[in-house]
């Protein structure tokens, strides 16, 4: 097992390298002089020259990349021009909001998506199956920002049940904070709910068609026992991989949800950065999210190996 974990960690290194290279190259695409763009139109000529030297922009591109790589590896993602702060500090400040939002969206997706998928598979080709299939299709076809707007119109403007925008105030009690997260999490969660429901359904269907399920039935075992002990356990193993992929998408989807619900998270920070041409901030955030995404998937792979007996077996002897 230790060998497997080590192997996966080693595999991450080239991916990380290419990710940093990609972010570096994307920023090279900015038309014009990056120093001028980064400093903004009010910059004085001598500042631009100094800035170019600071960033090493006067050196060959390969050297520039090495400088960038060194900075990133020491945790220096640059300084934001509009906030006049370290990009990493800014990110870490806003991270809790985005993480809370993403995790509660994931929670909603799991609580709704997995049971729906299971029920649909168990009642294959029935009305329930059709209904779940259609709902899941809508889930993956709906723009999450639009769904968020509809939720605001219905639950906050028409019914007045839940607050529409902003972060709650903890001094007004826990409910105030929680209630501000309900609609954004629902909006963000719907895409993953659809994906997870579809995947659970097909994974469950596949398992239900296996020989060992037929054998279990032939042995005269109770249906509920077969479903829980034999089918579900095996069907949910591949779902774990999808959950990992979803978490990355949720982090990115937070950009939209935070815009609609005016939540001060990573997404809001990025959109502000883009519109105010704070490229250092955008670059830092993109890289940060990608790295988080890579490590989330690494974690999922390792958890997967722990749960999946096949992989565990493979690495047991060594």
């Amino acid at each position, binding site marked *: 097992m230790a060998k497997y974990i080590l192997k996966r960690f080693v595999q991450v290194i080239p991916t990380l390298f290419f990710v940093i290279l990609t972010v570096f190259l994307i920023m090279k695409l900015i038309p014009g002089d990056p120093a001028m763009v980064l400093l903004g139109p009010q910059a004085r000529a001598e500042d631009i020259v100094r800035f170019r030297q600071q960033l090493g922009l006067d050196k060959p591109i390969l050297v520039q990349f090495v400088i960038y790589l060194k900075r990133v590896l020491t945790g220096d993602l640059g300084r934001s021009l509009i906030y006049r702060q370290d990009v990493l500090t800014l990110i870490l400040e806003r991270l809790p909001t985005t993480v809370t939002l993403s995790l509660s969206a994931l929670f909603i997706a799991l609580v709704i998506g997995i049971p729906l998928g299971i029920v649909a598979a168990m009642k294959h080709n029935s009305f329930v199956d059709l209904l779940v299939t259609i709902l899941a299709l809508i889930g993956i076809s709906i723009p999450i920002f*639009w769904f968020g707007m509809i939720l605001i119109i219905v639950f906050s403007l028409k019914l007045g049940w839940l607050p529409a925008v902003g972060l709650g105030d903890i001094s007004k009690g826990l409910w105030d904070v929680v209630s501000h997260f309900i609609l954004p999490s629902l909006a963000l969660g719907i895409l993953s709910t659809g994906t997870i429901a579809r995947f659970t359904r097909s994974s469950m269907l596949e398992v239900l068609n296996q020989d060992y399920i037929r054998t279990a039935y032939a042995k005269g075992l109770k249906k509920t026992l077969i479903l829980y002990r034999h089918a579900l356990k095996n069907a949910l193993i591949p779902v774990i991989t999808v959950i990992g992929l979803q978490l990355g998408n949720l982090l990115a989807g937070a950009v939209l949800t935070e*815009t609609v619900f005016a939540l001060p998270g990573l997404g809001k920070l990025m959109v502000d950065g883009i519109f105010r041409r704070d490229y250092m901030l955008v670059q830092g955030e993109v890289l940060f999210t990608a790295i988080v995404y890579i490590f989330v998937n690494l974690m999922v792979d390792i958890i997967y190996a722990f749960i999946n007996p096949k992989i565990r077996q493979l690495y047991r002897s060594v």
Partner: protein
Amino acid sequence: MKFLNKQVIFGLVIICVNIFSAIFAPIIATHPVDDMDFLNIFAKPNEGGHILGTDDYGRDIFSRLVYGSRVSLMVGIVAVSIGALIGTFLGVISGYFGGFVDALIMRFVDALLSFPYVLLAIAMMAVLGAGLFNAMLAIGIVMVPSFARVMRSAVMNIKNEEFVLAARSMGASDLWIIFQHILPNITPVLIVYASLNFAGAVISEATLSFLGLGIQPPTPSWGSMLSEAKNYLQTAPHMAIFPGLAILITCLGFNILGDGLRDLLDPRLKK
């Protein structure tokens, strides 16, 4: 109708309505697309001769939706073409030749896939600048790695089949084998994947335009209509409802078509 299942037909109907409204937009639209009816600003649906009402400038929402389908379809077609062409090219080379080329291409594909899809598109738009052309380019490029991945595994699945080996043993060149044997056999996978990605492209365009990074006003696009609508959720909720429905129905059409085609063309992927 053995070759068409219900899903495929249903998806095709939705898509045809879309294509129809894009082509005949000037005839279908009830009002000129940028005409501002100042007496009927924020008209509710069915008020002042506007079927779906008007927006904050008094422009007819139905007409703008009809014209908006042009943008959506164009972005879908161009972006998916970019993604499919480059992706297939890389995937075929990678899958067919293997070795060092494969390793190099796949490492790069892995790296691009490590970015959440939306994030990469947003980052590209931040650099390229807003606009229709850049949106199509960014969405297309973002699609390349997943196309490459899928096409590569499709090629690997068939490159050791007996008919390919037979062709090679008879002295066929790599180019001949790729064009005569590999490409025709991976086309079904390509079609299914392209259809599913079309839905993704439509949503991505809406997303970018919603954030203000995609299509710029006054060009009517569903995403930019939603972007304007978000400021008037209280006073004019109809401004938000209809463009979103248009996106939802269009994406639903392509997803249903993709699912149906997959069942039809690639029985192995069924379930």
